[in-house]
């Protein structure tokens, strides 16, 4: 009990900015996970987002290598990650639109090649670089400038989701009909993929690749059971996302375990529990 009290007193204490920053990162990333995660879920492109989020490790590895060897001094890993994310989003997007039958193979190839490039370059980077730190991240290392970037992305994503809500909903529900209505479905798809790629980079730098892909799918998936439409799915997913992030932070702190992994386990348990509940409910209705 005293651990919980300690946590809350530190959360409001100016002496422990890292806890407060982690808390606000949870709030701000919840908006991205909720809104983008819902779009990714209803458009069924979670696999694409997964490939992009893992492929960015290649960009991170190259940036770390170039920076540490002095070839491009001061090159931020985030720059490498963004280049790789947009590149992989572009390739996946074009293949998905032009050659649907090759989509699966290309997604897996980009996923694997991106990660392997990252590991190879990290191995040749002077000093010790641990790839797993990028897989799970550390939410407790978030700075105030990181929070500003997150807030900026929140505003952009919220605006775009509001402005193009009818087109996003329609293309996700029935792409062929949307095309006949004159909606540029390919542009909408590529825009969603690119924004997801940029968001994935920003988020994975803070919370890790594994948590990003889990949080893009699990809160939205859980919200899908309750939501009446895409807008309410986004709201519920944002709330679930915050709930999972906060409880992961709290429990991770109390039992001294990695917060990112804790958040994923909580979100996963909640989603699987909700899915199991739904299956049982349907069986009961079927029996009655």
């Amino acid at each position, binding site marked *: 009990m005293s651990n919980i009290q300690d946590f809350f007193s530190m959360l409001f204490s100016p002496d422990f900015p890292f806890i407060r920053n982690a808390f606000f990162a949870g709030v701000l990333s919840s908006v991205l996970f909720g809104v983008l995660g819902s779009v990714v879920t209803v458009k069924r492109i979670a696999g694409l987002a997964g490939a992009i989020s893992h492929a960015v490790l290649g960009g991170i590895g190259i940036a770390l290598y170039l920076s540490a060897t002095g070839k491009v001094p001061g090159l931020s890993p985030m720059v490498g990650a963004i280049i790789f994310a947009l590149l992989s989003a572009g390739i996946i997007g074009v293949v998905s639109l032009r050659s649907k039958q090759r989509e699966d193979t290309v997604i897996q190839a980009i996923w694997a090649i991106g990660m392997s490039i990252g590991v190879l370059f990290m191995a040749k980077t002077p000093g010790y670089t641990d790839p797993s730190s990028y897989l799970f991240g550390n939410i407790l290392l978030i700075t105030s400038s990181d929070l500003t970037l997150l807030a900026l992305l929140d505003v952009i994503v919220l605006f775009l989701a509001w402005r193009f809500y009818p087109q996003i909903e329609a293309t*996700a*529900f*029935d792409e062929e009909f949307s095309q*006949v209505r*004159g909606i540029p479905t390919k542009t909408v798809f590529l825009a969603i993929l690119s924004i997801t790629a940029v968001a994935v980079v920003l988020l994975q730098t803070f919370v890790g690749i594994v948590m990003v892909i889990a949080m893009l799918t699990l809160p939205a998936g859980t919200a899908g059971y309750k939501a*009446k*439409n*895409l807008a309410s799915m986004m709201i519920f997913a944002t709330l679930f996302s915050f709930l999972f992030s906060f409880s992961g932070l709290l429990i991770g702190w109390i039992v001294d375990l990695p917060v990112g992994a804790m958040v994923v386990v909580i979100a996963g348990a909640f989603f699987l529990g909700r899915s199991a509940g739904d299956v049982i409910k349907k069986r009961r209705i079927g029996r009655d």
Partner: protein
Amino acid sequence: MNIVPVALTFHDVSFSYPHLKVLDDVSFHFHQGEFIALVGPNGSGKSTMLKLVLGLESPQTGTIKLLGDDPVRNRTLVGYVPQHASYDPTFPISVLEVVKMGCIGSLGRGNKQKNTEQALKALEQVEMKELADRPYNALSGGQRRRVLVARALAAEPAMLILDEPAANLDRESEQRLYTTLGKLKGSTTIMIVTHDMRIVSSLIDRVFCLDAHKEGKKGRTIVQHTLEDEMEGETKRVRHDVKIPADYCEYPAGGKSE
């Protein structure tokens, strides 16, 4: 005597996918206000025809005019009812929201109140207004098909195109769907695309069949068949033994007379 303009014209249209010749020298037309059936066996190129009509594909040779202009320019005047076979039952959406998609513009948010009014009016046309707030995934297959008809009607289209409207529907649902279409007959041009080559609804004025090959051609072409009443006027039988050139029309040149 008013002249009714042509709704759809195919003139010497040929279309191929990279390794497959689908259509060869297809020429046919029909007029506004007509109720047309385009029939053909599975794999005959009906879906390709639809894509060409809706401007989702372009022919390699020949011209297509939809309501007097290029299909890409005029396709928003068409109410399209797809099969929607890949429908995701976990997609959270209400009936009203599905129908409102029919009023959607290419990039704008649109007028929410006006779109809702138009959607409710379209739901009334298919006698489903009372289910407006129901989740779409809670409807039966027949009800979902009528919601998609309402979605197509929401923008008050000049022409309605339905892809396999009776697929997976029971007899009662099919009858209800055709009752709705019967009310629209005359005021809206209607084209249904179906694989049932034997029997069509008695509402159909003319039938075009996509099952013939011209001599020396690999792709299919279209011929017209006559129709014969059967089942006490409820349905019409397609007379495959009586072929009419696809581009033949009994109406005066320039349009049918009213």
